[in-house]
């Protein structure tokens, strides 16, 4: 089951003649664009397609499972904390756990991950302590930079703005002759940003080792995919730029892992970028500032409840003999506990240091800014804030 390269099939025969700058003759035969395939390994009922089933160790399967459960536990806790007024605006990932976790399981420490804001599940997997992510969402400056050994970009809040830098990182890998790769995700809404189109083009032209994961979760705030694009699939953006693309059941963790694995392999082998459209669904609010009942029908949410990525994986693992009711419950409990511990740690952390706003903009604070800094410190002192 491959991320399928529409171009590979025909470049040999037609590229030279069709490119008008090698105009030995003018080829009149139509260009066959081929198909975009859809990958599903685990269906809604947790039944596995034996022919496609990946050979993964029990450890990997169980770790991945726990990561999904932990993501969901973090999600619920953050919602609670936000409702209690102890957390900033938060973007839940409820229902998208397979999609977000599956896209990073094949990354190493040397690889890079460039996430959008709805990516905490993957960030946890990449090594972000939970309390660090809490600081981030609670509006602390120290929450933004990734932990020491983690090669992530800070998550992107300006829609689509991280995709070009992510491609640049891939180009940097080529420049430095590294065999690593980059995974970058963005939403169905983000697909409309011109900068994302430019990013796909640059990646293709420079054969950058980048895996694009377009998380098609049906909605961009209140805007359904139908109003976002007249197309059937966001994977077709790959076609425009000569990038192999595939659609994946984004609620199927095995499909997400396999598709990403194959795409990262291509990247590492110098075969360039791949675009994965992951079809999933935003079960919850856009953010805690949003009220989806205004714009969408709850029936739709019900349909997707049945496609829960975690339940589906539990069925599979249970059938495989790796889980049973009690170990499932234990996993949920231990994740819940881990989140509570992190929460308490977070509550015990230092308050924000208001003085730091001048310190990280330049390598050293320019004299001019030093004066503003003093002005600012005076303001703080006048307010009775001493540092």
């Amino acid at each position, binding site marked *: 089951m491959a991320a399928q390269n529409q171009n590979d099939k025909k470049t040999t025969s037609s590229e030279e003649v069709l490119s008008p700058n090698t105009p030995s003759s003018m080829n009149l035969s139509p260009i066959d664009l081929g198909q975009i395939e859809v990958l599903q390994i685990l269906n809604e009922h947790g039944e596995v397609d034996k022919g496609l089933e990946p050979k993964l160790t029990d450890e990997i399967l169980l770790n991945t499972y726990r990561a999904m459960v932990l993501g969901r536990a973090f999600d619920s806790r953050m919602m609670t904390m936000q409702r209690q007024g102890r957390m*900033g*605006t938060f973007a839940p990932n409820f229902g998208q756990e397979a999609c977000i976790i599956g896209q990073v399981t094949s990354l190493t420490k040397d690889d890079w991950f460039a996430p959008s*804001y709805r990516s905490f599940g993957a960030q946890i997997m990449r090594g972000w302590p939970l309390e660090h992510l809490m600081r981030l969402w*609670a*509006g*602390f*400056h120290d*929450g*933004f930079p990734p932990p020491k050994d983690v090669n992530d970009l800070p998550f992107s*809040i*300006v*829609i689509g703005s991280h995709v070009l830098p992510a491609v640049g990182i891939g180009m940097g890998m080529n420049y430095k002759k590294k065999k690593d790769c980059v995974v970058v995700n963005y939403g169905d*809404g*983000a697909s*409309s*940003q*011109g*900068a994302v189109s430019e990013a796909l083009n640059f990646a293709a032209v420079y054969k950058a080792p980048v895996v694009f994961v377009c998380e098609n979760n049906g909605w*961009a*705030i*209140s*805007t359904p995919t139908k*109003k*976002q*694009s007249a197309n059937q699939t966001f994977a077709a953006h790959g076609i425009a730029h000569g990038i192999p693309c595939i659609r994946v059941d984004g609620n199927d963790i095995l499909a997400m892992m396999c598709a990403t694995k194959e795409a990262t392999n291509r990247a590492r082998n110098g075969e360039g970028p791949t675009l994965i459209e992951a079809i999933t669904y935003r079960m919850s609010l856009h953010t805690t*500032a*949003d009220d989806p009942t*205004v*714009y969408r029908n709850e029936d739709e949410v019900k349909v997707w409840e049945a496609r829960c990525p975690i339940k589906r994986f539990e069925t599979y693992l249970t059938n495989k003999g790796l889980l049973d009711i009690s170990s499932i419950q234990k996993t949920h409990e231990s994740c819940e506990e881990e989140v509570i511990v992190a929460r308490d740690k977070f509550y015990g952390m230092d*308050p*924000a*240091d*208001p003085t730091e*706003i*001048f310190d990280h*903009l330049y390598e050293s604070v320019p004299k*001019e*800014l030093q004066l*503003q*800094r003093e*002005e*600012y410190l005076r*303001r*703080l002192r*006048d*307010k009775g*804030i001493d540092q």
Partner: protein
Amino acid sequence: MSKLTMVEALNLAMDQEMARDKNVCLMGEDIGVNGGVFRTTKDLQKTHGEERVMDTPLAECGIVGTAVGMAVYGVRPVVEIQFSGFTMQAFDQIEQNMARLRNRTRGKYTVPMVLRTPYGGGIRAVEHHSESREAYWAHTPGLKVVVPSGPRNARALLAASIRDNDPVIFYEPKAVYRAFREEVPEEPETMELGKAEIVREGKDITLITYGAMMRPCKEAVLDLAEDHNIDVELIDLLTISPMDTETLAESVQKTGHCVIVNEGQRNCGVAAEIIARLNEAAFDCLEAPIKRITGFDVPFPYFQIEEHFLPESEEIVSAVKETLDWQ
């Protein structure tokens, strides 16, 4: 008359202008069913239909660029950019077409459109959601830049901007959106663009500000009057560009002292421009350097500490006193 928040007042302006002129239409992300993330366009799609209240794809450059074309064709789009930080995505279309197409065609085509966008800090938003970059637009020839400070002038200025035949950047102080209510007359009301308003007359010093900073300034003025017996002339700029230099200059010629407050970054900001103009227009009356209290030249900080970035009334009080004590 009813007491409206700024959000409601803006909604009223759009509703009435759409009723008045069937060429007025709205474009933006999530402005339809959802009524906009701040609910400013609430129910307008219900009232005026999907063709006139258009939910757009998530692409600011696309929104502004197509709105320019619609405006050239005789439609009058009122565009909402969800947060002013995302106008950067549309910078090219704003600078190259929205601001210039009239000039490029010597007036054959006009671009009667309004770009509404919430700006500024103070609501504990995530990064890139608290930008005040009105100076970019003031530095761009061909635009008018309008910043209301309360529900009533917001409504009147938005209506005037929609009727104006030139492109307007309409910068809405989101910290004021629901901060207070004001009487807003039911009948359509407009205010002339390009006029500053003397909100309070005074003889000792001129305090110039606009938008969300009106509130701390008003507090400071009260404080200065009551506790320090200082009589401040308070001016609300309302239109940033073209600027009403005359009103500012006359005031400073009278008071001889001036403090300017705005939350945007300082370097090449609006306060600098005001100082430059007053340097020219009121040099011989100035008895002390003009003081500017502005955002600092760093990105707007994350929300745990944003309150310290924003000018507050205490500091304005000190600045006024320092300016009057200067020698």
